[in-house]
């Protein structure tokens, strides 16, 4: 009589494909997962609690460290919330700079995702190509604000630094270059038979499930729901530019892949237009009181980060520090569907599905 039993396997927190300190305890029947329990919190720093003792300008660097792959959008969601609460006007030049860095950030973030996802699937080279191109974007950020990852660039009422001379031209050149690179990426990867067989039909769910789990970003759009806050609730200057919102049909990893690659292209389109319309002169800081004291009240704003809908909820009692600050982190919310998707899949698909969700652990744990 052969006795078989399930294998309890601890994946992470130190594992090459959990993209950080994330842990999943999986029960394996052979190589098939029968149960998966995510364990989070290894990177919890208590950002929201810390923020209660900081004034709003001091909170901005903390947002850099949430989604450190896309710090610009995090900066924006906080300053945008405060500005809305205070009814501040932001000068056009500053708003343009914000939009340009946010879209560059989206491209950079998607490039990181693209490279690491291919690495998860087992292809080594795309990772280096993607990071090579992301490096060019980071160089531009470096030139703009002196930092490569945690920028602390935006301020309530504007941005900290104006674009240096010739910076806009460099971005224009980069956009042209990236268009060409995207063609090459598509040629190298998007049609690869092995790659397609690995991701087509894997980790599929329908629109109803996606909405029930509160998914957003490419995870939601892959099911065919056309929901992009840049289009649906335009903030910043997004209503001035033409771009498409790519949607999928099957809600599988393949659709998510295509959407993210297409989103890079659409971001480049937005960048092209924004760089054309970039105002010649003007202020980069609006009229902001010396001490930022939003009036008593509460506000929730949400914007489209590369990973989905990032929200910021502020309760103010009229002091320089928020009474309560809460971030809706898309990585954390999107991750909730993972245990459901993993049941019945193999160990190999665990990596494919987890990578397809596109999480950043700094944001999951916050």
């Amino acid at each position, binding site marked *: 009589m052969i006795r078989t039993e399930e*294998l309890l*396997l601890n994946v992470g927190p130190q*594992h*090459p*494909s959990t993209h950080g300190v994330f842990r999943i305890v999986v029960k*394996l029947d052979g*190589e098939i997962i029968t149960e998966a329990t995510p364990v989070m919190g290894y990177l919890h720093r208590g950002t929201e609690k810390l923020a209660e003792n900081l004034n709003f300008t001091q909170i901005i660097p903390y947002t850099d460290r949430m989604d450190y792959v896309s710090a610009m959008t995090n900066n924006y969601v906080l300053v945008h919330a405060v500005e809305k609460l205070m009814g501040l006007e932001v000068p056009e030049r500053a708003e343009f700079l914000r939009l340009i860095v946010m879209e560059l950030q989206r491209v950079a973030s998607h490039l990181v995702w693209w490279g690491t996802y*291919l*690495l*998860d*699937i*087992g*292809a*080594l*080279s795309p990772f*280096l*190509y993607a990071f*090579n191109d992301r490096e060019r974007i980071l160089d531009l950020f470096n030139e703009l604000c002196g930092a490569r990852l945690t920028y602390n660039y935006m301020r309530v009422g504007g941005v900290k630094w104006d674009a240096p001379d010739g910076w806009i031209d460099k971005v224009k050149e980069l956009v042209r270059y990236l268009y060409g690179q995207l063609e090459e990426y598509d040629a*190298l990867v998007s049609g*690869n038979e*092995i*790659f397609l*067989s*690995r991701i087509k039909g894997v980790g599929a769910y329908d629109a109803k499930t996606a909405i029930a789990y509160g998914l957003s970003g490419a995870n939601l759009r892959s099911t065919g729901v056309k929901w992009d806050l840049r289009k649906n609730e335009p903030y910043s200057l997004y209503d001035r530019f033409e771009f498409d919102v790519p949607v999928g049909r099957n809600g599988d990893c393949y659709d998510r892949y295509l959407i993210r690659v297409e989103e890079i292209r659409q971001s480049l389109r937005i960048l092209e237009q924004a760089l054309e319309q970039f105002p010649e002169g003007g202020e980069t800081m609006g009229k902001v009181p010396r001490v930022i004291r939003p009036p008593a009240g509460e506000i929730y704003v949400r914007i489209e980060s590369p990973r989905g809908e990032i929200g910021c909820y502020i309760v103010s009692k009229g002091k320089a520090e928020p009474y309560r600050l809460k971030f809706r982190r898309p990585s954390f919310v999107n991750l909730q569907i993972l245990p459901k998707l993993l049941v019945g899949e*193999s*160990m*190999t*698909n*665990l*990596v494919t599905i987890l990578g397809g969700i596109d999480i950043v652990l700094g944001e999951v744990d916050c």
Partner: protein
Amino acid sequence: MQHYWNSPVTWGHAGIYLLGAIAVLAVVIFFVTYAIYFERKVIGWMQFRQGPNRTGPLGLLQTAADVAKLLMKEDTIPARADRVLFILAPVLAFVPSFLVLAIIPYGLNLQFADLNVGFLYYIALSGVTTIAIVVAGWASNNKYALLGGMRSAAQMISYEVPLVMSVVGVAMMTGSLNLRDIVIGQEGYFWHWNFIPQILGFAVFVIAAVSELNRTPFDLPEAESELVAGYHVEYSGFRFAFFMLSEYVYMYAIACLGTILFLGGWNPPLPQLDFIPGLIWFALKFACIVFFLFWIRATLPRLRVDQLMGLAWKVLLPIAIANIFLTALGIEWFG
């Protein structure tokens, strides 16, 4: 060395064999050292990187430094591991990889053992390494290692079948499994070589060989992104080096085998090039196959386990069998 084969064994002959064995060992170790260097350089260039360039001129001593580091590392054995098997496994993986080299003919008279069942000898011995990998996975007392070991066993057993079948066509054309006879059967220039009539067999052979070597896109046993390192996850220091060494020695062996079976061994490709010695042609063809292995490693993603099995049994095996049938028809009709 053929004439020693049929003469009585004396101390002198034994001594010569010993020297020969040491020479082969030296050649293979040299190959492994520079194959690793070459691999890192080639993949580095393909990825816009420099590759190793700090240790010695052009980084040529990088592998030597790595080996020295591995030698000096602490030798750890997990507390709950099966000690005997844990220590035995690297040896078990390494020994057959060297044994298979005995039958490789580098030139008309440059060969250790002129076995009539040369190819079968290769398959039989290389199968032993599979056992070593399962043993390593089992003895480590680590779940990742165990999964890697099991995968490897399934993969290598599955791919040995199409590998053998793909060579049957060559054996039919030559009427022999003797590797030297197979090369002699391809005497002439590139249009005489087996890869043209046996193009199907060659394709199956290459794919199955990549899989036997556990290299991308078939590197599932050590799939880094899922299983961290697979069966050798608990091995460190020189035991780990032995696994790596045996992997590269197999690469050497498979590249030699591909050269011999399909690419005409030491024969030059064109009549005008006859003046270049056969050994150089052998080395060139061999280097092309090795380069091909590095190239696909830099290019392709990895297959999934079930797809891997499906490919072996549903695609490669039928093609290989069809190839045998077509070869038989060809021999019947055209002689």
